[in-house]
Each structure stands twice: as C-alpha cells, then as structure tokens.
C-alpha cells in the first residue's frame, strides 16, 4: 500500500501544480456575489437559496474535475509515456491505478472541503450564526464527495479501454442515467413482458444510483439527514468503487501500452 500512497501523493501534487484548485477562486467569487445578492432579493429564504446555490456549485465543479481529470489520469500517462519508466519500477499496475484514483479523490476531498468552508462562512455572513441543523449541509457535501469518487472510478474504468473523448461521453452518460435510476425502478412492470420487467429491474440495480446522494433539499431547509442513509451511501460508494476499480485493474493489467 506504500506504493499506492506514493502514486497518490504525486497525483495530488500534479493537480495542485496544474492549478486545478484555482476553481476555488471562482467558487469564492460566486459565493461572495450570492451573499450580497441574496440579502436583497430573497427575504426570509436566504438559507435555502445560499445552500442550494453553494451545494450545486460544489457538485458541478467537482463533476467537471472528476470527469475530465479522472479520464486523463491514466490516458495522459499512456499518451505521454510517463508511465513507462514507472512501470519498470517494482510497482504493480493495479497499485498504480489505485494510487491515481486515491490521489484524485484526495484532491477532490481538499477541494470540496475548502468550498464547504466557504459555504459555511457565507451562511454565517447571511444568518449571523450557525445552528445544529446546519450540519446537514456538511452531510450533503460529504455525499457529493462520495458521488465524485464514484465518478472518478467510472471515468478511470472507461479510460482504460477507450479513447478519452468516448470515456468522457460514457461517464457523463452514465451519470445522467444514474440520476434517474429510481424512475427505472418505478416503471409499470405489470404492462411489460416478464423478461423486460426482469431486465429493467436488474439494470436499475446494476447502474450507479446517483439519486441517493442528493440531499440538497433536506440541507437547504435545515432538516437532518437520517443516519441510516449516511451509512447506506457510504457502503454503497465503497462497494461500487471497489467493483469498478477491480474491473479497471483487470482491463489495465492486460493492456498493451503503445
């Protein structure tokens, strides 16, 4: 695991030096503008507007980073052949892959935590205090981070066997489908053939369920997120990531580099 850590820390260093964290400046400017505007246009619902806007911004920026940098994690190394010298060292391909994943997830953790801190500061500015119920905002941020980790795993898997452009399309496509998994489960199975009903049911469990990670409405209204959901989402993200990364490692371990 030490080798995984070495790759992960270098991936984090790459993100920092390639100025990935500069998106925080954009987020800070957005939240400052929102804090000034919200007081004038939304009397009484400042918290709802600020939290919804803040969490949406955290999610969108995280999505952009996890898809675009996630796909480039391995494909860029193969393309530029920086991987060659590394794989000649005593390091297994799955260790490299896991290190790249861990490095980007660490970057996203720092990025998301910094934005969450900014959101809390704006909330204090708008409300002049924080309450116990505002902890739901932190849970919502945690869920966004879990979701991003899952997206990184998926983009890593796709980038192992297809071109970067297709990998981006597949990841974004799967993310959009994953937002509507519940609708797939709610389809009227009674009007379908048994085979089709079984297919949609299996498909709904196979596809990543991103809908469960969205607790923005609860957080915006200061309502607590159930503990069981926190546990369920954590386990779901860990197990799903493990399965996707295992598949990615299986593909990557047999891949002929160019």
């Amino acid at each position: 695991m030490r080798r995984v850590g070495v790759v992960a820390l270098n991936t984090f260093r790459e993100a920092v030096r390639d100025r990935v964290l500069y998106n925080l400046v954009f987020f800070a400017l957005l939240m400052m503008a929102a804090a000034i505007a919200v007081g004038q246009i939304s009397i009484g619902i400042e918290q709802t507007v600020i939290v919804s806007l803040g969490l949406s911004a955290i999610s969108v920026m995280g999505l952009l980073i996890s898809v675009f940098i996630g796909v480039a994690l391995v494909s860029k190394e193969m393309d530029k052949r920086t991987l060659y010298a590394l794989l000649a060292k005593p390091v297994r391909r799955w260790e490299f892959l896991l290190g790249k994943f861990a490095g980007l997830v660490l970057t996203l953790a720092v990025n998301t935590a910094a934005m969450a801190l900014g959101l809390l500061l704006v909330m204090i500015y708008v409300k002049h205090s924080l309450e116990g119920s505002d902890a739901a905002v932190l849970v919502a941020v945690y869920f966004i981070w879990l979701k991003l980790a899952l997206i990184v795993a998926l983009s890593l898997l796709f980038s192992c066997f297809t071109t970067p452009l297709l990998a981006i399309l597949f990841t974004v496509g799967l993310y959009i489908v994953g937002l509507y998994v519940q609708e797939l489960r709610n389809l009227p199975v009674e009007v379908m053939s048994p085979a089709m009903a079984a297919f949609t049911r299996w498909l709904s469990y196979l596809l990543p369920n991103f809908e469960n990670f969205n607790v923005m409405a609860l957080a915006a209204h200061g309502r607590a997120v159930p503990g069981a959901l926190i546990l369920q989402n954590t386990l779901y993200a860990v197990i799903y990531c493990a399965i996707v990364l295992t598949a990615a490692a299986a593909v990557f371990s047999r891949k002929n580099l160019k």
Partner: protein
Amino acid sequence: MPGLAIEIENLTKEYPFGFLHLKKKTSLEGLNMQVETGEVFGFIGPNGAGKSTTIKLLMRLIFPTAGSARILGKPISDVEMHRDIGYLPEQPYFYDYLTAAEVLDYFARFHDLTAADRKERVERMLKKVGLETARKIQLRKYSKGMLQRVGLAQAILHDPKVVILDEPMSGLDPVGRREVRDIILELKKDGKTVMFSTHILSDAEMLCDRVGVIVGGKLRGVGAPGTLVDMKTQGMEILFELTGASNAPLLAKTTRTGDRYRLQVAEEELYAAIEQLRAAGARILSVSQVKATLEEFFMNLVATDRAQASAVEVSGK
C-alpha cells in the same frame, strides 16, 4: 563461466490491425537470445526492426503473443525482479510539473530507500549526468537531451544489476553521447549487465562485448562485433596525390576528393598498381587494408530483408 542475466525464449509479438482487428502483423518472430552477466550487449537493427518491441516485452509494457523471458533467473512477470533492473525508455518523458530532483526522488521511493539515502543518491545521479545546475528547473523547460539524461539517471539510481537502455544516445549531442558511453563503460566496470538498443553502429562496435542484429522482427546474428563480420582483408586502398595530367588506365577507377585520389585494388595487385601510379607521376600518401565493418554486415542484412519483402509483395503471397 558467467551466468545468464537475460534469457529470451521464442518471444513473439503480433499486433492485430484492420477494422475488425482480424489481420495480424508480426513485430517480433520467435526471438531466442541470451545476455550474459557482466557483459555489454548491443541490440542493433534499423527502425521498426523489433528492438523496442523486445525491450517493451521484457519490461512488461506489452505482452507477448508467445514465448517467455527471464531476467536474473526470474520470470519477467515477477514484479519484485524490477528491484534489480534499470530501464531507460526510448525518447523518455517524465512528469513535466516536477523538477529533476523531484522526479528522481519520486522514482527512488519505489525502491524502499530511506529519506537520507534517497537524497544522497539523487544528488550523486544529478552530478553524474551533469544536471546539478538544472536540478530545480521543472522538466517542462528541459531540452530533449536533458530529458534523456534524467532518464539515464532514473535508470541507474537504485544501483540495479541489469540496465536496459532503449536508444540511449538518441537526441544527444556529441558531448552527451560521449558521457553516455562513459557511463555504460563505468557500469560494466562495476560488474553490471548492460543491454542497449541502437542503430548507431559505431557506438555498438565501440562499447559492446557482443551484439545481436535484428532485422524485420527476426534475429539475424549474435556475437562479438569482430566475429559477425568477415574480418579478412577485402582489398587495399591507396591514397595518392597527382600533379599534372596523366592517362594511366588505373586512374579511371579512382575516387577523387579535392586534390587527393583513392584507389581500391585486390591485395595481389597492390605492387603493380603502385608501380603504375608512380610511373604516372603520383605521390603515394598511404596504403591501408580494407576490412568489412559491422555497418556493411548490417547493410547487407537490411538489403536482403528488403529484397525478400519486395519479392513476397510482387508474388502476392
């Protein structure tokens, strides 16, 4: 008798191509080759001959269609074997957001070295490859030759027993090439095994105990550079100057460079030729033996291979 550092058995690599990947191109065909411990082995061949393919197969960057290989007695699939191996990729490229010192420290971390040991080795390597003054510059600002030096430094950083270099002289100026040659000779002096690929034959002739010649994915010869080529004298070359005009028949066979003429004759015709030239008023400057070089051996193989390839193409097979 020294043991074997690298053993390659029937190594074959085919690449699928075409829209449905149904056609196959053979990049390397049944390669059998051995490199002995402590020797400098040159792997020579024209571009696309299969040199880099062989090295990439040894490094498990690509996987063989058939065959196997062992390095220091261990199968190449054993990751731990890489502790004793140094590898310089062809036209190396490293993380350009790191400095030379940082990239070497990064690679050293995979070899379980202590922080103090890493620091000492990184400093020593930077000095060895002549990059100590550029140590704090990010690699994105490095020239091709400087990157090649970083590549060489990372290959020998952990004091490996076997060093495999893919085109180590490529992209280097004459000074850089000389330095790489010195490093290879130093590695040999330290008892390391060095295998390097090149298409610069003079380097191979100068450095190698043995060379393997590969053309068209097939090994065409292995041995000491002197034994691969026919070392018998192939003729004599006379270098002379000529003042004034002459119509000696021998002059028709000469090659002129400036004021000087070169004439190649059979060994038994040498004295008669000298007599004729003197009679024509020539001033003999030197007489030397003409021997086949590794280059001629190599060029003959390439020419034969191309002729066979075009014969196959013409017959439509």
